[in-house]
């Protein structure tokens, strides 16, 4: 019997409304850091229980304690300042990192949270980091003479954190690079920086990429020096599979089957069809089935309704095709 089609998620989950309110209260100085921290831990435990209940194979801590995926790290690294709010769309704003000096890792960034999450479950918890190219591209730069210089300093710092996660016991380390897909001319820099960030890792390495022109960067994308590349497939109606027929996908794939920007919950048959189409060109042992991207923009009910459909669809495909977990 072949094995494969393991289920997981990309990383972030929605924050419950009372946690959002608590974060705002903390930002206004109306809630102590300790109280917020306790609430974040309580909600993280609940989130891990729910992931176990629906039967996901590889879990995440949900990043309930993080805000923006770059700012969280920048706030904890010397060499960064944080800007006033910048708009991303409509009425959504975020505070963007500014490189103002040499960027270093001087303390753990995520390891304590990973240890806490892993202590709650026997299922593996992924270590979740933001990659050096994305950190560089999504920050302002007032210090470094070049984009490469900044990316490589970030790569060295992120490598220290990744090694610390591995030392703590992480079997899966995901270093997200969503910015990679929009500047094809800089793919060699992204490859170099991610290679430095993943240097010395024996854990399974993953990178998540989304919202880009994959027609342009594939198959060069396969040069990214990780074991698994996680891609949005459902959002692009699985168009990439046609490319894979001509130019085979040679790594493991995080195979996105849920559109995270749509409130509608997919039907089980839709998800099954997506997986079955994948199996026409990919081997089951290559495929890790997950949503297209982080789920933090959905409500908790939407997120878990979608995940339950995904897990059920995978179970049926496994049974029909004789694929073991």
């Amino acid at each position, binding site marked *: 019997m072949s094995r494969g089609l393991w289920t997981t998620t990309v990383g972030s989950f929605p924050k419950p409304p009372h946690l959002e309110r608590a974060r705002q209260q903390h930002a206004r100085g109306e809630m102590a850091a300790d109280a917020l921290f306790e609430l974040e831990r309580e909600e993280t435990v609940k989130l891990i229980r729910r992931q176990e209940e629906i039967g996901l194979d590889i879990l995440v801590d949900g990043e309930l304690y993080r805000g923006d995926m770059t700012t969280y790290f920048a706030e904890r690294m010397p060499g960064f300042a944080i800007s006033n709010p910048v*708009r*991303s*769309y409509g009425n959504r704003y975020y505070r963007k990192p500014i490189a103002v000096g040499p960027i270093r890792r001087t303390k753990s960034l995520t390891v304590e949270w990973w240890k806490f999450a892993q202590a709650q479950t026997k299922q593996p918890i992924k270590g979740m980091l933001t990659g050096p190219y994305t950190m560089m591209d999504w920050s*302002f730069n*007032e210090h470094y003479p070049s984009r490469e210089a900044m990316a490589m300093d970030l790569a060295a710092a992120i490598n220290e954190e990744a090694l610390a996660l591995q030392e703590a016991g992480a079997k899966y380390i995901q270093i997200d690079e969503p910015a990679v897909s*929009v500047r094809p001319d800089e793919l060699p820099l992204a490859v170099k920086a991610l290679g430095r960030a993943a240097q010395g890792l024996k854990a399974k390495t993953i990178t998540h990429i989304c919202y*880009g022109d994959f027609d342009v960067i594939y198959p060069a994308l396969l040069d990214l020096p990780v074991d698994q590349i996680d891609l949005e497939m459902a959002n692009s109606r699985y168009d990439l599979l046609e490319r894979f027929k001509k130019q085979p996908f040679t790594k493991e794939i995080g195979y996105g089957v849920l559109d995270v920007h749509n409130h509608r919950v997919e039907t089980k048959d839709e998800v099954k069809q997506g997986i079955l189409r994948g199996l026409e060109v990919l081997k089951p042992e290559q495929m890790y089935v997950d949503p297209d991207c982080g789920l933090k923009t959905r409500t908790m009910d939407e997120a878990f309704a979608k995940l339950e459909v995904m897990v059920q669809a995978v179970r049926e495909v496994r049974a029909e095709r004789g694929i073991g977990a």
Partner: protein
Amino acid sequence: MKIQTTLAGSYPKLPTETGDVNVRVVRNRRDQGKATEKDVADAVRETTRRMIAIQEKAGVDLVQDGCAGWDDAQTYVARGLDGVRIAGLIRYLDTNTYYRQPELVGDVRWKSSATADDFRAAKGMTSRPLKALLPGPYSLTRFSKDLHYNDPVRAGRAVGEALAKEARSLEEAGATWIHLEEPWLGKATAQDSAAVRAALAPVLADRTAKTLLHVPFGTPSAIFDSIADLPWTAIGLDLVDAAGNWDLLPKIPKGRTVALGLIDARNTRLEDSADVARSVAKAAAARPDLEFLLSPNASLEYLPADKAEAKVVLLVEAARLAARNGG
């Protein structure tokens, strides 16, 4: 030498002073049922007034309204067109910002003006010339998903004809300058020339207002020969992210204006105004027969409000320095 100054695209909407109207807060309150649509409209109007005041105080010659009510650079205008449906969020090129993707689902037709009333309101807030802003027809076509025409030339022409009517409505409202935001001109290849021309030609034809084709993030060198003879007044070149634009200067037809995008709208580091002035002088020396504007290379909304304001001040300082040096 007098070099005029202007901005490009939208401007940060948040205030830098505590106590000023904050449209973000008002919109959040509206979403929570604690404020009305009129409250939002009032906040947009006061934000527009503040954006214009920042430009006037710094001494910008050709001011803009800042697009205080726009969610992104496409949909404020696109959602008013027949044959266009607004779909999900996707990333806006290589910026970490997003827009809702228009989908062309039927014949694209103009219905009524989306921008003329805003323009009239903003015009009442300033005595300076006010530049209106529209999404460029080629870029709006490329940012959209074509589910109807399945032909980039026909799609571009339809979008261009619809935006020509929007431009006419701005002229009727008193616009003497219309800025067309055209990032895709910097990404188009020679094979796209027919589609580029089909989209631009209707908007540029029979204009009473001057037109500025602004091209952030790239160089339009691949398609420039196909648009050189179209009746645009000015072209905005990004000389921060696309140094290759210096090579385009010799090709600019006589009698046109070039907006030199020399202020980096995508980084908080402040330029040295003397360096900027030297670059202006370099352009003027290369093409003494052209007129020049000085501008940021892209929308200042990529910056936080405090840094954007500092760049507006720097823009005018650099222009004045260039004028002194040139004179």
